Structures are given as C-alpha cells and as structure tokens.
C-alpha cells in the first residue's frame, strides 16, 4: 500500500513526511530521470505502509519533468494526502480539484494553519470539507499539530466526484475560496521585511556576501573539525592494521594495489585501495560533504536559495548558468566534491555540464590552493595575484565560450519565492542523513574504482609512458623544465605530490605561475572526477576532460608567451 504526499512546492510537504515516517527513509531518482523523491514507512491500520514524498507540483497538466514524474506516481497511490498551503488557498486548490477528479481517495492537510491565522486569513474548514467532499485537517507540520488527526482521517479518504474543464476549474476555485476564506488586515512580519531586503540589490548583495562567507566558513570549520578530531584519529587507529597487513603480504603487486608501493603508509598519498582508497572518500571528503549538506539543508528550508538565485541570475544568465549554478561554484572553493554533487540541483544537462566543467577548471580546492600558495607564493604576492587573476579570467571567458558553443538553452527563471521560515530541525536532520547515505552508497564506490584504476595504471607503467610522450608539450609549449613532466603527470591525480616534485626544481617565478595554473586547471582530483562521471555520464565527462586539458595547455602556453 502506498500513501502519497502531494502538493505545490514550498508548502511543508517534506516536514509532514518526516513527521509521518521513521528514520528509514531513502531518496531515489525516478527511473530514467534526475527527479528525486523520498520514500519512507509508517504504521497504518496495523501494517507497515510506504509513504512517498512526491516532487512538488502546481498542476497535473505537467509542464516540467518533476511534474511529469508527479503525475506518473499518482497512478500508483492508494491514498493521496494533498498538502495545501492555507496562506495561498486559491493557488493550491487548483491542484486539489485536479486530484479530486482522478478517482483516488484524497485527504487534505491544510498546512501552515498557524501562519495563515498570523497574517489574518480565516478559513471555514467545515465548509471547505463540505464543498470538496473529502476530509480537511488543519495542520502545523513544524510543531506536529494536527498530524495525529490527519493519520486518523486517512481511512475516511474519499475520491472526489467533481469534474471540470480547465476554465471551469479556475472558476470553481474562485467560488470555493470566496465562500470559505475571509482575509483580515495583515501586517508585515520581521521575516517578510528581511525577505524584501534580500532580493533588493542594495541590501541583497551585501547580505548574500555575508551568507556565502558564513557558509564557506561553516563548511571549513565543521569539515576541518571533523577531519582533525574524528576522522584522522579513527584512521590512526586503523593504521596498525594496515601495517600488519603490509608485513603479512610482503612486497609485491598485491601490496602495491591494496596498500601502496612505499614503505611508509601515508593515507593521502599511498594510493593503495585500502589506504588512500578509503581515506579520500571517508577521511578527506565525507567531512566536507557532511558540512556542505548541513548548510545546504538550512539554506534550502529557510527559503534563502531562491532569493540568492534571483540576485545572481542577472550576472549568471550571461554565462548560460542560471538559478542555483552559483552554489556549485562557491562550494567547490574548498573542496570540489560537494560542488560536483551540487550540480545535480541544476535543471538541465547543459547547465550541469557547464557548471561542472567550469568548477573543475577554474575553482581551486584546498589542495590546489595549497599548491598555488607553495609554488607561486614563494615568488611573492605578484606571482600569487597573477595565478588568481588568470583563473578568474579563465572562469569568465570559458563560461561565455561554453555558453555560446554548447547547444540548447537555459530556461528562464520562473519560480515562487517562498516566505522565510525557520527550518524544522527534524526534517533537516532526516534530509542530512539521507544525503550522507546517498553519498556513501553512490559516490564512494566510484572513488574506490578511480583509485584502483590509477593504481593499476601506475603499477603497469602506463602513467610513466604517457609522461615520455607528453614531454615535448611540457617543455616546448609550457616552458617548464624536462623534470617537471613527471610531476605534472603524477599531478593528474595527486596534486600534493606534484608540488613535492616541483619544489626541488627551483622554478623561476614565471615557471611557478605556469605550473600552478596548469596544475589547478588541467584535471580535478580522483574523487571529483569520479563524481562528475556519475553526474554527467562518461561521455560528457570525456568531453569535459578534453576541455580541461585543452584549456590548461592553451592558457599555460599563452602565459609562457606573455609573461
């Protein structure tokens, strides 16, 4: 048996969902789409039944992919809980009437009931119930008010008997609203004033800068805190086990692949499947992913993201990047993995491709920043500034180029800006857990596979072979010494090691700048690469990688000529 939660976006569906279900919730993609929905279980009439949080939709005459999915899912539902925003009854009732025409038992949850009273809206629930012919229960999902009653009314769910054409439906909605709703005088709340301030450029831009700085700061503090105090100590406990395993295996191919070639076990650099393969996803990336999702959940549920999107749409539209594209970019600064995961929020494949490629090329992560700081930083502020200005210029120029070259269009912005709300911690936590689980089951295997592949290629000497053939490019085009070839090839997947190999070469300031820019641009780390493969697909990732390498060589070559 399946109970579906349906309703417009931003009506508190997920909060009702987290109230109804236990901890065992999973997010999955609807087959053949990137549309995500969540599923959980609840007890109903002595049985465990499925509860599905269907993607928000305004109408059953689907206009977007998410709405198409919602319509398809409707067919599988045994009971529909239609979540209605009591503060916007008219717009919400349109979907309600459509649901009532589908011969499915429906119960209406009149959510945000408290908010509607606050802003002076009075709704006659009994009358609404009579007009619709199905149970209507006022709820305040955030506090849990009305949830019990909602569950107790599920058996009374009834299919509607009304039938309308599109035009009649709007008339019927107007008619119902006229009969049941009274609007009193309303006054602006503090949150509403804040809402206005965050889309007005004069106040919105400084606010956005503050929010993003804060976001970045929280991600770093939480991420680094987790690494320093939780994950690194855990891996230290794990180290003796690896030493023992290494001794037991003895030197040879098995040890090289499982633990790594060196004598010492460096979790970040050994490149063994059981050392680096586990450390990269769990010890280095998971802490940032956790921190990123924590902040993202808060920003989503508070209603800030749509405002940020409106604010930056102006600039980003010219880059072919719309709506949330700024989030992947900014979150990539620090660790590219959360940025790569965040590209999933983008609506079209084209948007995801541009955002993912741009981020991997021009947005340096902590490791890349360290490379830049060490290599270019040793030659003074001028060299550092040259590297960052180059990356910024590349970001803009490449963004415009990709927008021109890649076919397809980015849809214009058209969305509701929900009022600011204080997020409900229960729903936040549930979402966080679900996303972490998703990262571990979906992304980690890719990272392991990536590490294994590099490891095997390295052991087989393929990477050294590539090095020999690319030597003329490195020395001729980029003007770097012959010895830098090995470092750049290693840097494909181990930027930190590359620095170690480049430092003893005593590069000139010009060479250091070129090496820093090329190292930052030409390829992301194994983890980011693996996740981009998953998000973009192997074919698009190949194209993206080609763009990365080509632009790194081009920019490196140009720097070699002009500096």
């Amino acid at each position, binding site marked *: 048996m399946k109970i579906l939660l349906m309703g417009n976006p931003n009506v508190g569906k997920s909060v009702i969902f987290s109230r109804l279900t236990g901890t065992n919730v999973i997010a999955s993609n609807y087959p053949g789409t990137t549309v995500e929905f969540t599923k959980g279980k609840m007890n109903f009439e002595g049985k465990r039944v499925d509860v599905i949080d269907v993607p928000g939709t305004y*109408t059953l005459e689907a*206009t977007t992919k998410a709405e198409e999915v919602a319509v398809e899912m409707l067919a599988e539902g045994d009971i529909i809980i239609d979540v209605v925003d009591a503060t916007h009854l*008219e*717009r919400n009732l349109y979907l309600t009437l459509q649901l009532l025409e589908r011969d499915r038992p429906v119960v209406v949850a009149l959510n945000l009931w408290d908010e509607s009273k606050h802003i002076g809206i009075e709704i006659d629930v009994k009358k609404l119930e009579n007009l619709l012919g199905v149970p209507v229960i006022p709820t305040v999902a955030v506090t849990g008010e009305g949830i019990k009653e909602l569950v107790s009314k599920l058996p009374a769910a009834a299919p509607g008997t009304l039938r309308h054409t*599109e035009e009649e439906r709007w008339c019927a909605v107007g008619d119902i609203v006229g009969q049941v709703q009274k609007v009193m005088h309303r006054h602006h709340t503090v949150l509403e004033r804040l809402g206005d301030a965050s*889309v007005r*450029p004069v106040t919105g831009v400084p606010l956005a800068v503050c929010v993003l700085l804060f976001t970045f700061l929280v991600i770093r503090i939480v991420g680094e805190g987790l690494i320093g105090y939780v994950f690194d100590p855990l891996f230290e406990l794990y180290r003796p086990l690896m030493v023992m395993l290494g001794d037991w295996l003895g030197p040879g191919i098995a040890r090289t692949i499982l633990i790594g070639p060196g004598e010492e076990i460096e979790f970040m650099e050994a490149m063994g499947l059981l050392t680096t393969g586990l450390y990269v996803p769990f010890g280095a990336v998971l802490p940032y992913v956790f921190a990123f999702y924590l902040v993202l959940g808060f920003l989503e549920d508070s209603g800030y993201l749509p405002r940020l999107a409106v604010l930056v749409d*102006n600039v980003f539209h010219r880059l072919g990047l719309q709506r949330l594209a700024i989030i992947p970019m900014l979150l990539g600064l620090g660790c590219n993995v959360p940025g790569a995961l965040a590209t999933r929020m983008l609506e079209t494949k084209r948007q995801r491709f541009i955002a993912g490629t741009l981020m991997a090329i021009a947005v340096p992560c902590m490791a890349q920043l360290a490379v830049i700081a060490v290599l270019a930083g040793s030659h003074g502020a001028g060299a550092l500034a040259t590297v960052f200005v180059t990356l910024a210029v590349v970001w803009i120029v490449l963004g415009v180029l990709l927008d021109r070259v890649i076919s397809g269009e980015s849809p214009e*912005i058209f*969305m509701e800006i929900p009022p600011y709300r204080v997020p409900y911690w229960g729903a936040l936590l549930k979402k966080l857990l679900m996303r972490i689980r998703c990262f571990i089951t979906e992304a980690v295997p890719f990272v392991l596979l990536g590490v294994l592949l590099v490891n095997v290629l390295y052991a087989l000497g393929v990477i050294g072979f590539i090095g020999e053939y690319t030597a003329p490019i490195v020395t001729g085009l980029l003007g770097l010494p012959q010895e830098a070839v090995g470092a750049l090839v290693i840097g494909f997947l181990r930027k930190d090691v590359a620095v170690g190999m480049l430092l003893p070469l005593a590069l000139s300031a010009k060479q250091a700048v070129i090496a820093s820019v090329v190292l930052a641009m030409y390829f992301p780390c194994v983890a980011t690469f693996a996740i981009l493969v998953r998000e973009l697909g192997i074919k698009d990732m190949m194209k993206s990688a080609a763009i990365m390498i080509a632009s790194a060589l081009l920019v490196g070559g140009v720097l070699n000529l002009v500096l």
Partner: protein
Amino acid sequence: MIPLTELGKGNLGVIVQIRGGHGFHRKMACLGLRVGKTVRNMTAIRGGPIVIEVEGTQIAIGRGMASKVLVEAI
C-alpha cells in the same frame, strides 16, 4: 496597456492579456498569473529577472516571459 517589465518599481497593475500559447498560459496560471489579477512590481534590477507579488506570493520571472504579460497600471 504595458508589458509587466515596464511597470515601475512598487507600482500595481492588473493583468489584461497574456501573450503566448496554451502551455504558457497554464504555466503562468500555476503561480497565480491570470487575466484580471492584480500584480505589484517589487524590484527593478536592470536586465535580470523581476520580482512581482501576486495574491500575497512573490514570484521571480525572467524578462522574456514578463514582457509577454501585459498589464494596465493602476
């Protein structure tokens, strides 16, 4: 009769015509933009999307779409 984009910041207008196909009308109706509804322009960002308020809901709408919604300023 002027396009929504021309409605000055803070001004009210009544939608008199929505230029576009059936799908476009539907899309607009979903967020409450229908002929006869009163809208208020909330922002005046140059070139970017505009933010309007209709029936107590704020909506961000791209300039291209907004120019197809015609209003009578009041």
